[in-house]
């Protein structure tokens, strides 16, 4: 008796469960699908993000919506390591650029930037472990900067282009990187990217061995960052320590070194490098004493010279 009814009961329960589990609400809008997809992508739920983006591509009713959906889908196909489909991603990005070609466009510059990024992230042989950037991607970054000069994507493209140039560690590329940074910072002091670009410029100056300029650039970068970051959300202990180090060992500016080591001690008393900063201050005192002695001896020698 029990055996006869058990399968029937199981079937009934399954049917009831299916009905109760069915979503009886309105279908999601394209914008909702996109939001859910991005949220899923942010927490690494790739399959779910792709389902939402695919659905958004299908249901999009305007070119702008379709471009947004294709850009989103291309992101979730190209960047995750799980079952990537970079070729389809590239196709979708090219389509998004064409679909969203209006002057006030929103998506096309981001799609073009992602195409450029794929040059750096996907077009380098994974086994070529010492190659970190792809010079072929640089023209694509430049293209974003030229076609949409006022769009935020252009600022980001500039940051990646400068990174690519500085990472090459050659004098010519470092010089070009410095020119790109100076050109931007001169007219965009308030941009959130300025402090970052100056940080990259400092590294380019290191390649060129221009220590004193490097010190000035690092200080400018820190001051700009603190001005923009009015809420004080970022920690600057590493930057302050770095300035002390550059001042002492590269620029030979002992006064600046002393100032920034002391600043680290005062502003970040719990930082692990506070002990190092104290040791550095002692080291500078000793060096200064030696140098003063040398200068005094030299001066005496000059005075006594016939």
């Amino acid at each position, binding site marked *: 008796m029990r055996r006869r009814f058990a399968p029937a009961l199981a079937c009934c329960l399954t049917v009831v469960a299916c009905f109760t589990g069915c979503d009886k609400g309105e279908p999601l809008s394209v914008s909702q699908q996109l939001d859910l997809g*991005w*949220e899923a*992508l*942010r*927490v690494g739920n790739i399959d779910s993000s792709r389902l939402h983006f695919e659905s958004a591509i299908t249901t999009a009713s305007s070119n702008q919506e379709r471009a947004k959906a294709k850009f*989103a889908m291309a*992101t979730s196909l190209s960047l*995750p390591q799980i079952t990537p489909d970079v070729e389809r991603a590239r196709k979708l990005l090219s389509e998004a650029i064409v679909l969203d070609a209006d002057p006030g466009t929103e998506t096309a510059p981001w799609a073009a930037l*992602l195409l450029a990024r794929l040059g750096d*992230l*996907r077009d380098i042989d994974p086994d070529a*472990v*010492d190659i*970190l950037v792809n010079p072929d991607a640089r023209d694509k970054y430049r293209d974003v900067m030229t076609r949409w000069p006022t769009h935020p994507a252009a600022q*980001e493209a500039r*940051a990646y282009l400068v*990174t690519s140039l*500085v*990472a*090459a560690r050659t004098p010519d590329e470092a010089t070009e990187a410095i020119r790109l940074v100076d050109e931007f910072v001169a007219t965009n002091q308030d941009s*959130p*990217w300025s402090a*970052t670009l100056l*940080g*990259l410029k400092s*590294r380019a100056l290191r390649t060129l061995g221009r*220590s*004193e300029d490097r010190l000035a650039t690092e200080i400018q970068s820190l001051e700009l*960052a603190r001005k923009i*970051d*009015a*809420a*004080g*959300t*970022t*920690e600057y202990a*590493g930057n302050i*320590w*770095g300035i002390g*180090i550059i001042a*002492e*060992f*590269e*620029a*030979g*500016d002992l006064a600046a070194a002393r100032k920034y080591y002391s600043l680290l001690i005062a502003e*970040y*008393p*719990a930082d*692990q*490098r*506070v*002990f190092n900063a*104290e*040791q550095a201050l002692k080291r500078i005192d000793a*060096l200064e004493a030696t140098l*003063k002695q*040398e*200068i005094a001896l030299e*001066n005496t020698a000059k005075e006594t010279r016939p």
Partner: protein
Amino acid sequence: MMAIFRFLVNNAALILIAAAFAWAAGTVWTRAARSIEGENEIILRVCHWQLETGYRDAINELGKDFSDDYFKRTGKRVTIIQDAIPETVYGQFVSTNLIGGTAPDLISVGLGLSNVIWREYLNRYFVPLTSDINRPNPFNVGTKLEGVPFKQTFVDGGRSSYNEELQNYMTVPTSVHAIRLFYNVDLLEKLTGLRTPPKEWNAFLAMSEKIKAQKKADGTHYTPLASSKYHFGVWVSTVADPLTWTLLHKADFNRDGYVSSEETFAAVKSGRLKFDDPAIRARYAIITQLSPSFPEGWTGKQRDEAVFLFAQQRAVFIPTGTWDARSLQQQAIDADGKQIFEVGIIDFPSPTSTDPVYGPFALGPKYDRPLPWGGFGITRTCKHPDVAFEFLQYISSLEGNEKFCRIVGWIPVVEGAAIPESLRSFKPTLRGMYGNFTPFVGGETNVRFEQLTDVFIAGRITFDEMVRQYTPEYLDKGERDYNLAKRDWKRGSLGSEQFLLAIRESLKTVPADRQREMLWRYASLTARRQLFPTVDRAYQVKLIADSGNGLVQLPAPYELSAAARSRAKEKLRKTFALESN
């Protein structure tokens, strides 16, 4: 009667399930009933894993104080309900409740789940506290911290509250932990005549020898230092590792203040650093002096066994953290509440700068990293996030935190708050040396290093033999490990890009008045995760390539270049000239 018995036996499983269901339903019902707010009442549910003595009392006590204060201001009472969850199921409890939308209002963050999962939970289910934590704490009015931004009132400047990936302050800490040496004062006195052990290393060793030489009534020897595999790590990090601080000067090529494993690899490859460096030799010498004071067979012992040895008064010292302070003190009291032995606490012994062996490396005390503990986050399902935040401000105000930590027996997290008398010696030392010995590049070198270390500790090979065996294997396997690390880094940069793009998309929904701040955070995050690492890695690749080709002599990282020295001298000369004019 038999029929009933037969029924019970035949349906035992069913009855058990029904009983469990009834118990669970009863618990849910009573808890739900407790969570229903009365008129003029606000209920805050607080979830944590602290089952140690005093913690729940402290939360209750501070909850009552806060409620009184809140009542005076608003006419409403605040009731605190605690969910004290055992460590073993904490992760599951938090996950289930966060995902199910039934999470408590305040959750202590950090235990039971991986960092990645916590980060995602913080992102999805918790309220960012950045704007609030940047304002002064109103409960500090009238104290020396009045007007100071809340985050800066913490001993670590609020660093532990900040989540780099989310670019937001997400939690509020309530206490700090540190690791110290606990000891049985009475046993020490009985065996050595001392009530306070010496701080100087050699005197401490001599005292250990004296302890070890004495026998208990059963004929077995006393153990100076309770230890296990776990405790050995504590000893090494506190006593031996700080002696390697000076390796900075040989291997910190990017001069960021830390020696990475890649920098050590470059330094060893180029010959600038050798594994028999005097600082490394000193590290192993002190380990060799330490281990004979451990109990027999300590390498096979578990953490609890070492604690047991201490509680049974067979060992005199045990290293552990403040979280165990009250529990250890309770072990020293019998069932009738009578004190069996007194527990003392000291900082770890260390060599002085005049020590003939360790002196050149003992340039200061060891650095104590302040370890803010179990900071609370506010969940998005909290009905009264403002009140929850006020409660956290109350617990972490100068006076509130002093009281909280006095009850629980932990170290206050608020700068300048009085530390309970029994924990004075726990006050973290913020200016000191830290370890810079990073002897393996990746998995293969790590395995070999651990194997040789075990053999060395067992006394089967000497330090020189260990170095002789390890160096060629390190150079060979290190190259492979380094290549694997570079591949991992490339893969990681794809993940970072994915994360950053999703963050960038979320900026579109941020209110206009917060756009600029959020864009700054995004740019800053991009710089830290993608831009600077790419350039810095490129320099590192060059450094390691140069270190092996014999073409470039790597400069000592902290050596003044001739050009820098000359510029410094020129500047001083100008200052002199100005002064004499």
